[in-house]
């Protein structure tokens, strides 16, 4: 099934053939064979390049998808390669191991799609090679550490007419889709959105190490572009391999700014520095401000990434409007919806299943012990006159989004990719729109270096 439109035998054709055969011959054996054949027709053979942390997460998320078969795995580090090969074996997938992706692409002929989870500076090379070999590609974010690399990926996908999905998985998350399609846009519960703030605050962590007996020799590291083992393991903090925390963490969330607003920014100003870590090149503390022109007016959006503290509420994207606010996070515990006191009541949206009254956490009625009588009003809580300043506005009421994701967070995005390959359904994050995100994100590092506001032109976002 290497091309969506030229699948040799579709599932329906095959079952149809089986039924006709059944008319001539004793039915049962052929029905059984037909079913097995149908399963084969639905099979999608995949290969993985990059068997590190994310490679394994994607493998685990892809394994439950019916019909997905891992045929090959590729990694330059035998330690990770063997671990993934063993993981796949445990689930009955005989994936051939390779060090060189070129050899893999040329010698395993029945691969339909390639999943790429290598460091960002390799994405363009790996993606372009896989696309040119006639494979569909699911490549991790950030698309590339350079705009040119990202552009080449879109161009190659266009030329080869193969599918290219980028790993901004929030786009396939049903909670995010509900938030965008029903809350923010459809029923416009936030009113006029004027501001977004987003953040990823992460506590100090040690650099990655490696088992002493698993070090790769320097000559081999050099061949693949790495200076030494420390940089090979901690590539995300070095400028020649990646775009730093704005690209590593911010890319996901800034992608949500563009995607939720359906717009690209017109300017970017930013500040950042490597203030804490002695062993990193990239910033550990950075903040950016964008201006997004939208059909409703200007939206100003700030984004902050800190790798020195987890204080300040973890990671979220916070969309604020004149009637409500929406705090979204991949982690449901940081997700909340708020209604301004001046906005119309939301009872009708509760009835329609668009929002939910919280049953636990913020906004939920006080917890009742299992033996206590329910519905008893308790005294206490802040009084109406608790405001400190007369200009304080009434508190927002807290609500929940009644949509949850009951799978691994990357699975729906992989499913979306698999469906696109099999059925031609639209990709959640095709190369063209991921390119706009890459342009947005990479501009931040440029703005920090330039120490001034940089402007975008609409054509910057077109590959």
């Amino acid at each position, binding site marked *: 099934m290497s091309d969506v439109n030229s699948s040799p035998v579709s599932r329906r054709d095959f079952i149809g053939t089986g039924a006709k055969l059944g008319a001539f011959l004793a039915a049962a054996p052929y029905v059984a064979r037909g079913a097995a054949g149908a399963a084969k027709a639905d099979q999608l053979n995949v290969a993985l390049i990059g068997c590190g942390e994310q490679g394994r997460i994607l493998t685990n998320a892809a394994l439950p998808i019916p019909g997905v078969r891992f045929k090959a795995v590729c990694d330059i580090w035998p330690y990770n390669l063997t671990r993934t090969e063993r993981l796949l074996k445990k689930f009955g997938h005989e994936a051939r191991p390779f060090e060189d992706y070129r050899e893999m692409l040329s010698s395993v002929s029945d691969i339909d799609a390639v999943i790429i989870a290598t460091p960002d500076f390799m994405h363009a090379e790996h993606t372009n090679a896989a696309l040119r070999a006639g494979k569909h590609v699911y490549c991790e974010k950030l698309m590339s550490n350079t705009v040119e690399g990202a552009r080449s990926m879109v161009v190659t996908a266009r030329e080869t007419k193969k599918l290219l999905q980028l790993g901004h998985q929030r786009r396939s998350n049903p909670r995010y889709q509900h938030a965008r399609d029903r809350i923010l846009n459809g029923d416009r519960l936030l009113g006029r959105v004027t501001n977004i703030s987003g953040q990823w605050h992460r506590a100090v962590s040690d650099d990655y190490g490696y088992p002493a007996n698993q070090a790769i020799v320097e000559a081999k590291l050099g061949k693949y572009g790495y200076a030494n083992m420390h940089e090979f393991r901690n590539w995300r903090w070095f400028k020649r391999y990646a775009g730093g925390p704005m690209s590593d963490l911010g890319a996901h969330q800034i992608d949500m700014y563009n995607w939720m607003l359906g717009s690209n920014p017109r300017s970017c100003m930013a500040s950042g520095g490597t203030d804490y870590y002695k062993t990193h090149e990239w910033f550990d503390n950075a903040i950016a401000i964008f201006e997004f022109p939208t059909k409703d007016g200007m939206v100003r959006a700030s984004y902050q990434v800190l790798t020195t503290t987890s204080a300040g509420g973890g990671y979220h994207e916070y969309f604020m409007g004149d009637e409500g606010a929406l705090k979204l996070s991949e982690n449901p515990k940081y997700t909340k919806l708020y209604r301004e006191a001046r906005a119309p009541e939301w009872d009708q949206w509760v009835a329609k299943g668009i929002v939910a009254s919280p049953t636990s956490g913020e906004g939920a009625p006080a917890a009742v*012990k*299992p*033996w206590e*009588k*329910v*519905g008893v009003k308790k005294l206490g809580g802040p009084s109406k006159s608790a405001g400190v300043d007369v200009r304080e506005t009434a508190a927002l009421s807290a609500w929940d989004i009644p949509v949850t994701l009951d799978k691994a967070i990357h699975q729906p995005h992989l499913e979306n990719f698999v469906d696109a390959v099999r059925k031609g359904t639209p990709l959640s994050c095709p190369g063209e729109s991921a390119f706009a995100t890459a342009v947005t994100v990479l501009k931040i590092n440029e703005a920090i270096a330039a120490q001034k506001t940089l402007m975008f032109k609409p054509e910057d976002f077109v590959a």
Partner: protein
Amino acid sequence: MNEQSSSPRTEYGYAFLILRLWLGLRALFAGLEKFESKGSYSFAAYYENMGRMATGISGASFLPLWSTKLFAFSIGYLLLVFGLTLLLGIKTRLTLVAHGLLYVALSFGLMVVQEAEGVAWLGMHVVLTVGALLLVRYNRFAVTRD
């Protein structure tokens, strides 16, 4: 101050009356609220509320459900009876003893589920009942004399 406006007996009498009225009202309303659900009172609500209480306590402790149910389904009626008898002053001494024991039993239910705040809350009722028992000999304005 060698001139006294009333004898200590009279003050003890009033002190006890106040305590009796408070305990009586408290017991009456503690019993009544067990019949309430969403603003209306019924026997169905009583069995629902008390069923929840019994399963909640049994679920969180070693007490078997039959024992918590037996207690929970009778407690509302007992409180109503004690409330009325205290308010009217009927068999006050006996009522106070039974009322005190009832609150000890209630406290026991919360002790086994480690509900320290609730135990302290009920403990106040026990202390007030003990105080009432110490003053019961000054009982006045009562329908029956003990």
